[in-house]
């Protein structure tokens, strides 16, 4: 199948002009779906929002110049503010600062261009086949060969060249697509690199490597957390033969960018980029907790349906996120990770000493030393490829 035909497969009709929500998604015909933002903000709310943006601007400095300094001095303030949500107008910039991608970009001038223009990828056809199937209801990605689709293609192709072992994997497109709504193509590429290669947090490329090792690990950890924290529901899942792979694999593979309320995706991403994958577990647990009393009564089929279609009240970030943060899972995740890597070894006795480790690691990454050392590793990786 040649390139031209691949595109013909996905020939769109004339784009209908329809109403879009505040994020650019075309509203469903019978539009009663909220976009998460109450209509007609009061003057009071608008003033509060403006004060919040001013605070954020001060914290960031011009073009991000004060950011590192501020984070070093006030990591808890930053964490608290991020959990409340990054102002949408600053989101793209802040995401680049907290993910470490800005540093990658500065350390690798011209690399992205080379990857896009001069390299060829074995995944090109696969990427093309998926381009019009990524956020098909978003105006930016709807137009065939339009700027959205072209940027999406470029990023995915560039990454498939940058890491030829991983190449292109379905699911990456939704992450790249989300990023493209908030930053330029090159910025989005480096943020993808920062995540998958682990600039600040543990690398996530295992989500996409052969055998999906990290997906398997996360699902195993998640399953155990459910059993431990919600035993009744965990038992119900076992009885109904529901496996987390049936409902949660996409949560991890796409970090809640796939088939999930967009306003909530953004708030999850604010926290995810700063605090790491832990929040995906927490949000997953919070969704189950919120619907717990219904879920435990449902038989297999209805259960599956409910696990893919959470009620609107459950997806309000200001309700769900506080519930999510109430799950203290860092230590347990570490332990479950070790158990997963080394099945059979006991864990309960050693948990107190391990409890300190995530804390230290977290503090380190906040003060930036880990950021720098990991970034050097990533940039070396890039240099090797030239």
């Amino acid at each position: 199948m040649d390139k031209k035909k691949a595109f013909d497969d996905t020939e769109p009709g004339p784009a209908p002009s329809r109403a879009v929500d505040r994020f650019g998604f075309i509203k469903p015909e019978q539009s009663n779906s909220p976009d998460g933002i109450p209509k007609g903000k009061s003057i009071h709310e608008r003033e509060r929002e403006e004060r919040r943006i001013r605070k954020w601007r001060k914290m960031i400095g011009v073009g991000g110049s004060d950011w590192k300094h501020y984070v070093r001095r006030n990591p808890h303030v930053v964490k608290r503010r991020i959990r409340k949500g990054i102002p949408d107008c600053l989101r793209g910039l802040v995401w680049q600062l907290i993910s470490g991608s800005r540093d990658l970009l500065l350390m690798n001038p011209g690399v992205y261009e080379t990857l896009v223009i001069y390299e060829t990828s074995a995944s090109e056809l696969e990427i093309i086949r998926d381009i019009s199937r990524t956020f098909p209801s978003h105006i930016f990605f709807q137009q065939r060969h339009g700027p959205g689709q072209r940027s999406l293609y470029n990023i995915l192709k560039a990454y498939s060249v940058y890491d030829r072992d991983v190449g292109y994997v379905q699911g990456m497109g939704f992450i790249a697509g989300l990023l493209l709504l908030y930053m330029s193509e090159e910025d989005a590429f480096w943020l993808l690199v920062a995540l998958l290669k682990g600039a600040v947090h543990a690398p996530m490329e295992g989500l996409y490597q052969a055998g999906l090792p990290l997906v398997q690990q996360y699902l195993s950890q998640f399953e155990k957390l459910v059993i431990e924290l919600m035993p009744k529901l965990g038992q119900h899942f076992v009885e109904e033969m529901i496996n987390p792979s049936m409902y949660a694999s996409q949560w991890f593979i796409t970090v809640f960018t796939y088939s999930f309320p967009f306003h909530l995706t953004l708030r999850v991403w604010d926290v995810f980029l700063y605090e790491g994958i832990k929040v995906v577990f927490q949000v997953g647990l919070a969704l189950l907790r919120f619907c717990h009393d219904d879920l435990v009564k449902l038989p297999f089929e209805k259960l599956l349906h409910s696990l893919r279609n959470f009620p609107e009240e459950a997806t309000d970030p200001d309700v769900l996120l506080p519930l999510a943060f109430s799950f203290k899972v860092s230590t347990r995740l570490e332990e479950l990770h070790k158990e997963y890597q080394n099945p059979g070894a006991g864990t309960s006795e050693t948990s107190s000493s391990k409890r300190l480790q995530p804390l230290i690691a977290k503090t380190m990454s906040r003060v930036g030393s880990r950021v720098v050392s990991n970034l050097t590793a990533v940039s070396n990786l890039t240099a090797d490829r030239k």
Partner: protein
Amino acid sequence: MAANAGNKIRNAKLVLLGDVGAGKSSLVLRFVKGQFVEFQESTIGAAFFSQTLAVNDETVKFEIWDTAGQERYHSLAPMYYRGAAAAIVVYDITNPASFTRAKKWVQELQAQGNPNTIVALAGNKADMLDARQVPAEEAKTYAQENGLFFMETSAKSAINVNDIFYEIAKRLLQGQQAPSPQAGMVLNQRPNERMVSSSSCCS
């Protein structure tokens, strides 16, 4: 297509396998909801649907697992085809590579799956005859040699979509009456739900 309330309902797990973009999700969506979208979002992980189908005076309730097509997701597939009463292996008649991939799925099902699983081969996008690259004869011969039943389908124009599911349902029920009662049939393992929803989905 709707189920008649009152008669016996047989649950049957069905899995769709096939290459990226062959039209697995579109086939299910056409069958379950009667809809077609030109730009069906890629399936990540797997999606579950159900639909009931009346065959004579019996009713089959399909529990359908629609899987992600990309090779990299292969490791997730066994969970969905294991214990399946039926599988539809889908390829795109305009894409020879997808036919090659379909054959690999058939081999895998024959090697790893339940020998009683009813396997259907669907040559999808049959509305795009001008772009055809996989001759129907070739697929038909392959299907005969491998004991599959074969249909060309179009999720877009609805050609043969209900028919392929109907044929599977018929064969499931025939298998049920055959001497081996286990043949490809997953009996209701869970307490039966009293209400039969005509369709539901959770993609």
